[in-house]
């Protein structure tokens, strides 16, 4: 697609999408958002990029095989779920580390896992679809 606006804007927009998606991910526990929505928005950024610059460029921009990103997300979710074993609690019990205003928790790790899994999955799908011409 040879639209000048799109090809110029895509880089910035993709960055904006990514930024916004991280924002949505991180605040999800308290306001609307979370891993799913974040993942969807983040992936949408790269989908746009692939429209503007082609799939190959988009794949290069992602650097890693999107399937691997997804699997790492799943791994993260598993780790978050199993981490409670260290505190001998039930599986998937949240462990919280609250430093002043910053709350770090396995629940957040889990949500990041969701984010990555959704992100990877959608990019896998869209890229594979795009490449079937």
């Amino acid at each position, binding site marked *: *697609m040879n639209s000048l606006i*799109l090809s110029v804007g895509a880089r910035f927009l993709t960055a904006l999408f990514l930024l*916004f998606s991280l924002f949505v991910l991180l605040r999800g526990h308290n*306001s*609307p958002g979370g891993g799913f*929505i974040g993942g969807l*928005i983040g992936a949408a950024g790269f*989908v*746009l990029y692939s*429209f503007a610059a082609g799939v190959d460029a988009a794949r290069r921009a992602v650097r890693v095989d999107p399937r691997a990103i997804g699997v790492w997300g799943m791994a993260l979710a598993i780790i978050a779920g199993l981490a409670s074993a260290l505190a001998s609690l039930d599986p998937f019990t949240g462990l919280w580390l609250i430093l002043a205003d910053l709350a770090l928790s396995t629940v957040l790790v889990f949500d990041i896992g969701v984010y990555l899994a959704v992100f990877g999955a959608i990019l896998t799908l869209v890229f594979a679809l795009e490449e079937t011409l």
Partner: protein
Amino acid sequence: MTPTAFMQTSVTLALIMVGLAIFIGFIRLARGPSLADRVVALDMMTTAVIVVCGLYAVRTDAEAFLDIAVALALVSFLSVVALARYAERLGRRNDRDD
């Protein structure tokens, strides 16, 4: 009529009008006839939904709905781009859509 009540009424009226707008946009979408008509109609409807979110946020005093508006505003044109690409390629292939 108190200001709050006035506000409420106007928001309700606005909602109905946006609803009508969506409906009218929808008619364009359903009738076509050209691909571009439909794509633009869809985009217009999405924009109207952003307005609905805003109005609803005002009405319920819940900013959560504004978040939807922001997210939707960001992402909505993706589908338009995709459909436009589709229309363009279809044109190049001389494939009629129906």
